[in-house]
Structure formats: C-alpha cells, structure tokens
C-alpha cells in the first residue's frame, strides 16, 4: 500500500473513517449534547481543537519517550493523563484570556477530557505508525469528523422535535441511536474512496 499524504488522511478521517460513525467512539457526549445546534457547535469546536492538539502531543510523547524506552504498554495511561492535563490548562488559559471564547468553547473543555474519541484518535495514530504530518492530519480530521457528525445529528434532532411524531418508547436516546445508525449507513457510501486500515 502506498503511503497516504496529509490531505488524504485528513479526508479519510472526516468521511470514510469517521471516528464516531465507523468506530462509535465519543458516543456519550454525542447523544447527550446533540439536542441543540448551538451547544453541539460549541462542543464540536472544542473537540476539533482538543483532538488536533492532543493527537500531536501524544504522538510526540510516544515517538520521543515511550517508543524509545520500549514502554508501549504505558500509552493508555500516559495519553489519558496528557489529555486531561492539557484540557485543564487550555481551559485556564481561555478563561483568563477571553470571556467570549470561554462562553462558547472553554466551558466544554472539562466535559470532553473524558471523551473517548479523543483518546481513540491518539491510540489509532500510534497503532498505525503515523509520521508527524500524518498525525496532524488524522488528529484534525478526527475532530472535524466528530464535529460534523454531532452537527448533523443536532440538525436532525431539532427538525425531529418540530415535525416528527416519535413513538413514546423511542424518545430521547432511543431515536438518537436509530438516527446514528442510519447516519453510519449513509457514511458507508464514502467507503472505498480512501482506506486507512
């Protein structure tokens, strides 16, 4: 298989290998915060930012610390700690620097420290032996893919609230999971354009 470029990986991470719709990672906040477009836009932006930055950070920690010392098996715990510390740090910076940015983005940061899509992205990129640029592409792509999925979901759910008569037993998470499944099916249409695996 010929190596993929930065943009190919970015594209693949957004569409063909969407971390939410093909790996089903980051489901809890996806289901919990997708009632309104506004909230999901804030959360989506925060995930894009955090996934992109922590992917690169974790790539560096892995490439320069864990791999040379043969400590591969520590990656789970180390990645999680890096992500948690980083989100906290960014939250503090944002809160200090800009109130408006904190309103729209910073508030979500502590929420997504435990978002598994973010840890998932970091783990995938070391499992697949990405180079620095690939890691960048994959990190940004995963975040954008997740944000795209939650925005689409919020849009659908908002419409649903206004128009559709959902059977009572399916209200809330039930119908959301059905929609997520349908979206995943739709995203299968991108399959075959680029493959990451």
């Amino acid at each position: 298989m010929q190596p993929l470029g930065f943009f190919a990986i970015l594209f693949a991470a957004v569409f063909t290998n969407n971390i939410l719709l093909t790996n089903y990672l980051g489901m809890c906040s996806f289901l919990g915060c997708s009632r309104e477009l506004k909230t999901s836009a804030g959360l989506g932006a925060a995930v894009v930012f955090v996934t992109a930055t922590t992917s690169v950070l974790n790539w560096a920690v892995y490439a320069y610390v864990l791999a040379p010392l043969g400590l591969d098996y520590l990656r789970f715990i180390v990645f999680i700690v890096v992500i948690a510390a980083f989100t906290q740090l960014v939250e503090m910076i944002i809160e200090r620097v800009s109130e408006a940015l904190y309103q729209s983005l910073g508030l979500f940061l502590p929420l997504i420290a435990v978002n598994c899509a973010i840890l998932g992205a970091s783990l995938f990129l070391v499992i697949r032996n990405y180079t620095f640029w690939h890691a960048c592409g994959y990190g940004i792509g995963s975040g954008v893919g997740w944000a795209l999925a939650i925005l689409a979901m919020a849009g659908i759910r908002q419409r649903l609230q206004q128009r559709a008569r959902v059977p009572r037993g399916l209200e809330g998470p039930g119908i959301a999971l059905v929609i997520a499944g349908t979206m995943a099916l739709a995203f299968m249409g991108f399959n075959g354009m680029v493959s990451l695996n």
Partner: protein
Amino acid sequence: MVELLIAVGVLCLINTGLAALLMVADATLGNYGECKVTINDKRTVVVSGGRSLLAALKDEQIFIPSACGGRGSCGLCKVTVLEGAGEPLPTEAPWLTPEERQAGVRLACQVKVKRDLRVRIPEELFSVRQYRARVSALVDLTHDIKQVTLKLENPPEISFVAGQFIQFEVPPYALTDEPVYRAYSISSDPADTGEIELEIRLVPNGICTTYVHRHLKVGDLVTFNGPYGDFRLQPGGREMICIAGGSGMAPIKSILLEMERTRDPRPCRYFFGARSKRDLFLVERMRAIERALPNFRFIPSLSAPAPEDRWEGETGMITEVVGRHVGDASQAEAYLCGSPRMIEACVEVLRAKGMPESRIFYDKFA
C-alpha cells in the same frame, strides 16, 4: 527489574511534570488575586478570586440557598450581579427568565470571582446560618404527618419570622448517595428561639420524607440552614383569610402562635382542608387559639369524610368552603400554604371575591 523501574520512573516523571505544570498554571493563570465584593452597596468583603461567588460568600458567612451544592442543577442560588461578571454562562440559561437576564440575575455557583464585583443579595439572607440540632421529639400528627422538634445546639438560638422555612439536610442513606436538602416551613412560635418544629408529610419514595419517617430517631443530630422566605404576616391589620391543607399547616400555625402570644385583635379566619378525620390534626390547639383570640375562627373542612367520622363540620373542596364563607374579600388579605394545585384554585376563588392578587401571599413549594 530495570525495565520496571524505568516504566515507573517515566510514568512518575510525566505525571509530576504535568501536575507541576498545572500547579504553576493555577498559581499564575488561575490566580485572580484578591477581589472586592460589594454587597448591596453597603458592605465590602475581600475574597480570594478564582472561586465561585457561592463559595466565596459562604466563607463570609453569607449563605445563599442552594440545593445542589453548586453544580448548577437546582437554580436556587440566584443573586443579582450588577458589575463584574460578564454574560450568563450556557449552564445558567435554563434557570433564568428573560426579565432576570435583563436585571443581571445570575446563579452564584456559576459566577467565578475574577475581578471586583458589585452584587445585590436579599437582606434576609444575612441572617441565614447553618445549624446543628438534636431531634428532641417525634410526634405522629396523623397517619402520614410527623411533627419533628429540633433542639438547637450550635448555634444555640435562631431568629426567624413566623412563616419562614429552613432547608433540612438529609445525610447519605439508602435512597441517596450524597446529602440532599429539602425546604420545610417552621411551625413553631418565633419566640421559642432554642427550638424549632417542622411538620413533615410522608411522600412515597420521597428522599427526605422517607428519611424523616423511617430513619430519624429522637436524639439524632441533624443539620439545617435558614431561615429563608418572605412569607410572613403583613403589617396593617387587614382582615386575614388563611387557607392550608395537609402539612401546609406549618407556617400558618407559626403565624397564629405569634398572634396568640401578642393578643393580635385582627379578624382572621383559617380554613384547613383534609380528606377525612384521620387527616385532621392540631384541632384542639386551634380551638385554644380561638378562645384566646376573640376575632379568630378555625374552620376545618373534610373533602371526603368517612362514615365512621360522624363529621358535622364543613364538607367539600376547600375552595367551595371558602366560597361559601367569604363574601366581599376586596379589603382582606390571604395567606395560603399547600400544594401548587390547591394554591392555584384558591387564588382563583379569592380573585373572584374581589381580592387583588398583590394581597394573596404564598410560598411556592413544588
């Protein structure tokens, strides 16, 4: 062995490194220095910034009512921030009406003190304290209402206005993993400063009511904070119409006890609604107040008397009874306590009798 040491060492290094980084960040970025909080333009307190307004005020012995303990999930800790807090956060949005937003009302638990603030807090909150008390008596008033007497230990005395309520703290037990707070009106005379009484009706599966009815014993130590609320006797000597049902007896009883003690000559009628005789309580006490106050009348009424009750008093829904007894109510004022549905129905009846809504007083307990 060496490998293991390296692994542990690396892990420790990374973790301490990150922890140190965060500590430095907290001390520099998260350090907002000392901030002045001006309360009601009268009092200024200096607090260390970076914490929530709720926590900062608590350290200054100012207790804002909060049932969730600062997670933004109860919407009780409303204060008005006039300067220095910026826009409300999305976490506050569900709790604020457009008018409140306009007026600068915020949830104290969500406002972080980052610079000097100017806030407005209802005056009566300054007398709010946390109390430790011992259960000195538990009396079954009816099959599902208990009277709980609390002897104050620390502080040993409370000052409250008849009609006010406290928040009772339920410690973690079978039904709850964390302390929860529930509001109950004080039913005793404010002159008894060393003791308070509560009347608590058992609600099926209610966290606090189950605790009080099934677990609380005489001699137990409990915690509550208060007093809160502006439900109280209005000055002016107008004719009073009191309406209550069930444990709604409590604040009205407190008001009546005070009137009895001060020999208040105001005309007052107290309509008390219950289902059947087994739901009626404190009738003798009310009759005693009737004897002490010539212008007071107690009118209990049963909505569904049992045949063995041999009830000869008023029957029907409390609203019907009030409708039969009250003529023109345009000069009177009303004090209501009960379920939201009862209050709604009573307000309607009283308005139909000509009473302006501004003179109908009640606490909204959900």
